[in-house]
């Protein structure tokens, strides 16, 4: 029995060796793993792609008691891999997709094609192993990206609808309040004037919150685009101060503007720079107690414009300095708002390729928000 088997093996191996010599070159060039093996799991052909795919050499594969156990340590996966193979009839083939475990322990996704042929009365399996791991990973990434895109679209649509639904009643609130305030249809007494002003300012405040949320949605979904133009920074900063002048006056806060010589024109998205400065400035006025001061300083450092918005207000403790830009963060409950202003400012600065940070001496010692913007746009690509 023993010697008979040896003879058979030699016959088979000799036969293959003759052909193998001719096919060797071809086999080594192929990217798929190719094996010829008998029913006992002995490999006659085991090309270098197969070594690359499994991590095992032909010698290691043949020396192992059960190669299949080696590459399918999980019995269920092994069963799946072998399913249909034992029933294969001569001339038939079978394709299956399995996960093998490489010698280095990493999994690999493989499509295996197995054919059964007969050689000198022995069953010989020809197997082709195609490594589709990277392909699968690519598909996985694609799927994840498509999912993220769909989620983003859904969010944008939600924000657009929400904005629409909220603006429609606000149109009535603000519009009719304005008509009453302007006394278009008759005079109001002082108390009525005062109250309608409350309706009007609250309505406008609500509108600014809705706009903030909508803006944030646009930045986050990558829909916010820079529309750079050349404009006067001086005019912009002066204009921003005018917007908070009344509030500062009511709060007893002194405003100042300090622009270094040599900067006036800059190339950036004017509306967005205005929004950044306005957000910082309205915070400065909001968080500065009566009798305090707030203002803007601007200077040019090479190709960078640095804008500082400072105040003598409530200050920011060092533990809070990172958090204030992350949105929905409030230093003190007694101040209204969602804490979105700084988050939006940060996103808009970054969209321009600039930086924003805050310096403060601590609680009660005022804050200085500093930001840098390229004098010419270098938009940061959104990923």
């Amino acid at each position: 029995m023993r010697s008979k088997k040896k003879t058979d093996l030699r016959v088979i191996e000799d036969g293959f060796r003759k052909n193998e010599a001719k096919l060797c070159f071809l086999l080594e060039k192929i990217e798929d793993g190719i094996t010829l093996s008998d029913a006992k799991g002995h490999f006659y052909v085991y090309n270098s792609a197969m070594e690359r795919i499994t991590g095992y050499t032909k010698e290691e594969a043949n020396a192992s008691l059960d190669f299949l156990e080696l590459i399918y340590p999980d019995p269920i996966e092994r069963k799946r891999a072998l399913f249909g193979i034992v029933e294969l009839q001569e001339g038939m083939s079978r394709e299956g997709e399995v996960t093998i475990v490489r010698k280095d322990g990493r999994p690999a996704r493989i499509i295996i094609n197995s054919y059964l042929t007969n050689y000198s009365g022995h069953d010989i399996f020809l197997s082709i192993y195609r490594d589709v791991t990277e392909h699968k990973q690519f598909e996985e990434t694609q799927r994840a990206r498509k999912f993220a895109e769909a989620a983003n679209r859904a969010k944008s649509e939600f924000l657009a609808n929400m904005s629409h639904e909220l603006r429609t009643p606000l149109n009535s609130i603000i519009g009719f309040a304005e008509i009453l305030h302007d006394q278009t249809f008759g005079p109001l007494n002082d108390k009525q004037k005062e109250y309608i002003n409350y309706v009007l300012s609250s309505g406008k405040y609500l509108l600014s919150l809705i706009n903030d949320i909508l803006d944030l949605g646009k930045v986050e979904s990558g829909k916010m685009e820079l529309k750079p133009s050349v404009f006067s920074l001086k005019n912009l900063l002066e204009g921003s101060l005018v917007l908070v002048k009344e509030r500062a006056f009511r709060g007893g806060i002194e405003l100042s503007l300090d622009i270094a010589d040599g900067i006036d024109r800059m190339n950036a998205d004017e509306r967005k720079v205005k929004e950044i400065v306005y957000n910082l400035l309205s915070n400065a006025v909001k968080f500065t107690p009566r009798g305090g001061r707030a203002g803007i300083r601007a200077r040019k450092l090479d190709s960078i414009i640095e804008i500082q918005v400072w105040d003598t207000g409530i200050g920011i403790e060092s533990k809070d300095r990172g958090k204030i830009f992350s949105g929905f963060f409030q230093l003190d409950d007694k101040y209204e708002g969602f804490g979105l202003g700084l988050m939006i400012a940060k996103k808009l600065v970054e969209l321009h390729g600039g930086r924003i940070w805050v310096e403060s001496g601590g609680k009660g010692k005022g804050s200085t928000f500093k930001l840098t913007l390229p004098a010419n746009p270098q938009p940061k690509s959104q990923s």
Partner: protein
Amino acid sequence: MATVLLIEDNAQNRRLEKDLFEVAGYTVIESESAKDGIALAAEKKPRLIIMDVRLPDMRGTQAMQALRADERTRGIPVVFVTASAMPEEINQINTVYNCGYITKPINTRTFVKEVERYIGENGMKNA
């Protein structure tokens, strides 16, 4: 006196616009739906149409196409008053001839002046 047609499904918003136009000396006709509004436009030939973008029966841009397809209403300027601030919709409106948009909430102090810009050289009240 020149006539303005308001196509807007929200009754309060319609009232607000009506007040502003009447104070400025216009005659105002109204419709809650695009379908009725299109019919009214063909019948009364207003000098200007103010239309909401999201109407209950169709999109404002579809109504716009219907108005442009009819000889009787083809030349009437249309100003959309939209609560939507999404750039896609605004881009769509911008591609149409003789057509403008204003976003809600409207500024009651400048609203009539803003829409009058779309009426053309003669000005609505002189026509």
